[in-house]
């Protein structure tokens, strides 16, 4: 999606659009669904990794609320991309299992944020809890199990955050 749409999204301070498809001719699903943004904060804080997006019509169900499929897609990404960033991995983590509780709706114009909490990391698995929120209200609670591939695995596609975020992600795990 072209960068001109960023003004429509009006992301809060600190959020940068994630470019999932650097150099790729056809947009993949993460770009196709709309602009997704990320913000990186100090290590160990609630805002160490935050994903965000503005709700538009094309993300909604016929009743005019944010579609569950959009919530699940973003929660999946927060669990894998965010989860790997939180534990200092730069790999694509395939999702093994997820559970979603749809606790509240969101509507067009809302700014939705997603945060992950690492529950446990084993040699091969990463367990996370994910919340999507609008302001202080939770709209989705998700529980994720992702696989940690052996070896170097695949870097997280071609996704690119802002430079500061990349540097933060490159820090060795503590």
């Amino acid at each position, binding site marked *: 999606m072209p960068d001109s749409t960023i003004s429509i999204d009006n992301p809060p301070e600190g959020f940068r659009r994630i470019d*999932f498809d650097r150099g790729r001719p*056809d*947009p*993949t*699903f*993460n770009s*196709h*669904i709309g602009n997704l943004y990320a913000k990186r904060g100090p290590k160990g804080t609630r805002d160490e990794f935050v994903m965000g997006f503005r709700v538009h*019509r*094309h*993300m*909604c*169900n*016929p*009743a005019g609320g944010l*579609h*569950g*499929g*959009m919530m*699940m*897609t*973003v929660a*999946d*990404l927060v669990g894998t991309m965010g989860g790997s960033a939180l534990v200092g991995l730069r790999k*694509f983590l*395939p*999702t*093994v*299992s*997820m*559970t*979603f*509780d*749809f606790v509240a709706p969101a509507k067009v114009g809302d700014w939705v944020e997603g945060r992950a909490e690492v529950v446990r990391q084993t040699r091969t698995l990463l367990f996370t809890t994910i919340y999507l929120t609008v302001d202080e209200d939770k709209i989705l609670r998700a529980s994720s199990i992702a696989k940690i591939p052996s070896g170097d695995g*695949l870097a*997280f*596609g*071609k*996704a690119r955050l802002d430079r500061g975020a990349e540097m933060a992600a490159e820090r060795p795990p503590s």
Partner: protein
Amino acid sequence: MSIPPGFRQLTEATGFAAANGPWFEKVEGGRAIRGFLPGPQHANALGIVHGGMLAAFLDSAMGTAVFHTLQRRAVTLRLSLDYLGPGRIGDWLQAEGEVMGHDEHMAQVRGRLYGPRHDVLAGLGAFALLNRHRTPKTRS
């Protein structure tokens, strides 16, 4: 790859479903099967169908199963998903749901999403049934 016989395109879809479609449906003996043909716009960084897209599609098929079994519109309360195998771009994928139990307010649904070679995604969901007199809203 063409659309298998008996499937009708869900032309009434709007919003998310329309933007990520087209989606198709076949109703056989009161049982609804949904299908779609994944393209590059449904792919993740590995070049297989994105888990979020698979989740959205299975959710829609499970909600449709509630409607065809109980004649009630429903919204998803909880969905639990296990990813069994990759969904390939260009493979026709199908999803269907089965109502395992229900009362006046809730339905428990089992769902399955599969391709031509293997199962892709297994689901178990709890759906809240909307009041019968409430204006039906197209579910997609």
